[in-house]
């Protein structure tokens, strides 16, 4: 399964969500499908995309929030699973693309390739709904169910360690950040 195919399958559903991604391939691939003002790409601070999603979810309980995380980032901040599970915002969907690799820095294998089980860690952390998927069809179903459902969900998507040739885009970090906040404020005024 390719992360890009997963992103393409979920892309239409992202229109009415606030989306926070990790850096590198995930950000570049989502952006290549078409940037939207409700997408925020956290291009550093590995591990904190999920914490950002938690802050958004607790502050905007009526708004669906999707975090697009990765195994390397999540392994840098495993405590986030226990913090998310503690408050379990029902409007937060946490997708983890697990390619068993720190792809963006040259493809170094992560611990998930050596037996570390993020699905088990998420479940044992107390996340109320946890799924692992290996096909695009199952991925799409899991995302649709999570968006329609009313409980914090972590979806571990096992994907191949491939990505685009480059990660820098013409969207500046600050432009993205200010556009994202302005978009949210415009939603609140509606």
């Amino acid at each position, binding site marked *: 399964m390719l992360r890009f195919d997963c992103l393409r399958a979920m892309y239409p559903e992202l229109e009415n969500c606030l989306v926070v991604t990790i850096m590198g391939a995930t950000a570049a691939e989502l952006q290549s499908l078409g940037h939207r003002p409700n997408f925020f790409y956290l291009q550093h*601070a590995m591990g904190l995309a999920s914490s950002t999603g938690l802050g*958004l979810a607790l502050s905007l309980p009526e708004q669906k929030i999707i975090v697009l995380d990765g195994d390397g980032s999540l392994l840098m901040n495993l405590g986030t699973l226990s913090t998310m599970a503690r408050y379990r915002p029902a409007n937060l969907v946490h997708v983890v693309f697990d390619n068993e690799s720190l792809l963006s820095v040259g493809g170094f294998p992560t611990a998930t390739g050596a037996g570390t089980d993020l699905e088990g860690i998420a479940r044992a952390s107390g996340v109320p709904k946890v799924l692992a998927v290996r096909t695009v069809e199952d991925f799409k179903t899991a995302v649709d169910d999570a968006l329609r459902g009313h409980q914090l969900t972590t979806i571990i998507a096992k994907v191949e360690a491939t990505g685009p040739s480059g990660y820098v885009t013409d969207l500046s970090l600050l432009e993205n950040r200010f556009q994202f*906040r302005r978009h949210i404020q415009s939603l609140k005024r509606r």
Partner: protein
Amino acid sequence: MPVSSASSKAIFDALKKCDVRLMSALPETWLVHLIRMADDDPEMTLVRLAKEEEGVGVSAGAHFAGVKSAMLMQNHGFLASINAIVSFAHLYKIPLLMLISYRGTFGERDPWQTQGGNVTESLLRAMGVPYSFLDRADAVEKRIRQAQTLAESSLQPVALLLMRDLMWEE
């Protein structure tokens, strides 16, 4: 426990007056009353963290959502958050109101706190984080408001160091 309830209440009331509605925290002795007050207040969202750097992400999310937040941590928690402050809050110009209990300074009896006390201010200066001290209850409200004002106008992290003279009664 000789942590000052009156000073803790002055800090909490000042944060409420500044419209802070979300606080992230990782417990430490000087912060116990503040965390309890946040937990007891239905208007305040308290996020208990596993590690302090999560709080940078949580506060960034709150900022995007238009909610004012504050971070409660010990200075060792600040040390544990440095990458997040630099590579999220500074990189993306995120205002952070950090209330940091300043352990390991004059009067410190716990040997394990003393190294952190030596480096806290020099690291804040090296990172270019504006900071000031909270050492008197009668100055708390004004200084918290000033700190938040600067954080919001400059879109950057600012730190208030909670001092022993304010937080500890013995």
